[in-house]
């Protein structure tokens, strides 16, 4: 696992890009440019980038309704992402999917999912397919703490274990499932303890420390790639924004949010580390944020300029052989 300055800078840049993208998405939603509803991953960049930083382009990834960060970290094109969120023809899914149903098969990104835990059965199949095709790909599945209480998680972890599938189950415990606290809905404090019930390693990490995530993910991915089977990785973090944009958030206080924002922000924490290591300085930081802002701005422009699909296009893309 390369641990050089360039890698670190890449990681930092990706985290900032995600933050800028999500910030833009929130603004565009508020401004009525993005239809439907969107779920932002601000504050969770340590998880998405930490994990994806150890993946290959041909590795598979599934994610959730809160998947912009994972998708960017896996290498997606911001223009086509933005266009999809805007419902435009040039979007990844030609406007048919939107934020909750976006995918890029060219980078192994098998899709977001509007059904909580919907990605887990799918990743089992991706893992099985890898094993049957005898490649050394790895399949990673992001899911939430809320998802962790759904049945498909159990079935998927059992299956992956008995067949030693090359899967990393990555649960992002951001302490909430919509309005519901994880501490209420989940019977264990560390979701990773459930791994023992499937005879697989389980580990919980402070996911606002991107390098801690990267290290744990590297181990899990190496294990999977070398045919030793699945791992349950719990990335502990905090959802800074509402469940969806516009969420009244009566279930928590401003103070609680602020305490995470101030001290725990994964991007700032990493910047501090890199500054100490002399890989970053104030100027460079500003430059990275500016560059990310420019890329995101360009993506917005691309999306805005792109046409909506023609109504009749709604009838396309259902079947290969109608």
């Amino acid at each position, binding site marked *: 696992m390369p641990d050089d300055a360039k890698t670190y800078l890449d990681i930092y840049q990706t985290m900032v890009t995600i933050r800028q993208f999500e910030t833009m998405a929130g603004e565009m939603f508020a401004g009525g440019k993005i*239809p*439907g*509803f969107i779920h932002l991953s601000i504050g969770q960049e340590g998880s998405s980038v930490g994990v994806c930083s150890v993946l290959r382009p041909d590795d598979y990834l599934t994610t959730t309704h809160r998947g912009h960060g994972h998708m960017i970290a896996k290498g997606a094109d911001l223009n086509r992402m933005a266009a999809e969120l805007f*419902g*435009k023809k040039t979007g990844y*899914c030609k*406007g*048919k*999917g*939107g934020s*909750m*149903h976006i995918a890029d098969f060219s980078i192994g990104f098998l899709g977001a*999912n*509007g*059904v*909580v*835990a*919907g990605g887990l059965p799918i990743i089992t199949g991706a893992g099985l397919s890898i094993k049957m095709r005898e490649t050394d790909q790895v399949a990673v599945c992001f899911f939430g703490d*809320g*998802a962790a*209480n*759904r*049945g498909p998680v159990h079935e998927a972890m059992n299956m992956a274990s008995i067949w030693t599938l090359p899967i990393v189950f990555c649960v992002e415990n951001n302490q909430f*499932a*919509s*309005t*519901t606290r994880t501490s*209420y*809905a*989940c019977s264990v404090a560390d979701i990773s303890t459930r791994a023992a019930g499937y005879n697989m390693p389980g580990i919980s990490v402070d996911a606002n420390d991107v390098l801690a995530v990267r290290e744990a993910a590297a181990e899990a991915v190496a294990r999977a790639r070398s045919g030793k089977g699945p791992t349950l990785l719990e990335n502990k973090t905090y959802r800074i924004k509402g469940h969806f944009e516009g969420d*009244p958030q*009566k*279930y928590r206080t401003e103070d609680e949010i602020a305490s995470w924002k101030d001290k725990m922000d994964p991007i700032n924490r990493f910047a501090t580390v890199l500054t100490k290591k002399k890989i970053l300085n104030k100027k460079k930081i500003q430059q990275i944020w500016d560059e990310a802002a420019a890329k995101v701005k360009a993506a917005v422009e691309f999306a805005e300029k792109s046409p*909506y*699909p*023609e*109504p*009749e*296009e*709604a*009838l396309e893309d*259902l079947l290969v052989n109608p």
Partner: protein
Amino acid sequence: MHERILSNAEALAEALHEEMSRDERVFIIGEDLISHAGIFGQFKGIPENFPGRIIDTPISETCIVGSGLGAAMTGMRPIVDLHFSDFVTCAMDELANQAAKIRYMFGGQVSLPMVIWCPDGAGIRAAAQHSQSLEAWFVHIPGLKVVVPSEPADVKGLIKAAIRDDDPVMFFQHKMLFRKEGHVPEEDYVIPIGQAEVKREGKDVTLLTYGSGYYLSADAADELAKLDIEAEVLDLRTIKPVDMETVGASIKKTHRGVIVHEACLTGGFGAELTARIQFELFDYLDAPVARVAAKDVPIPFSPPLEDFVLPSVSDVVEAARAVVYR
């Protein structure tokens, strides 16, 4: 009678308050109910007024419905909130293989007084997995009743009937209708399950509809009136059992029917109703029964696509004109 105007969400909340006060066995269970008093505000006041009787659950649709089942079998009267009707998919075994069949399989030993409350429908750009209208599946499962009200007064009367009913009732409410307003009587009344209502009289064609289709049909009837076509608007309200008496009376008068629903066309409830009308009322029909429904694709995200897929007032007008001028 003075006009008391409530929204569909308010009508529901009022009825729930009344029923929960009346019968302490009634409770509500589902995801994220308490903090927002229901994602559409439909449970307003319930968390404060009935603490412990509105229960937040983990994300576990299978066990949420299952827990309703087990509670219903042991003396309670649960209302199970499915959050989005699309997630019935995660509890189909509990609905189709358990709730619908338990009484029958066990020879009538037990009853299952439960309501499965399902907000459904499209129009909020929520795309394929949060926009469906799946009521037809449940019509095809013996052992379930299926109620799909449209107007606030119906919501109040029918949710009360559903709660008091000793059989499992699937209760669908369209997301886009929660803010729709209408007169709601103040008193405690029940609208029997299985009773349709002619909401506008007409002699040229019957628009047979339910749920969101009612509003499309009502608007279409206005348009048709301008074309000198008098459409009768028949709001089924319950689709299982379906009120063939009221349907028959109307078709015998108009000799023409158009069924309007938001669920996609193929295999939708319109098919069943058409099959019955043409079988039972063949000699009264002067034209084939037409169906207006969503196009046969998943609900797409982008606004122009979604709008194109969903049935519109003009679709209803066109269909009605086609059968009338036949």
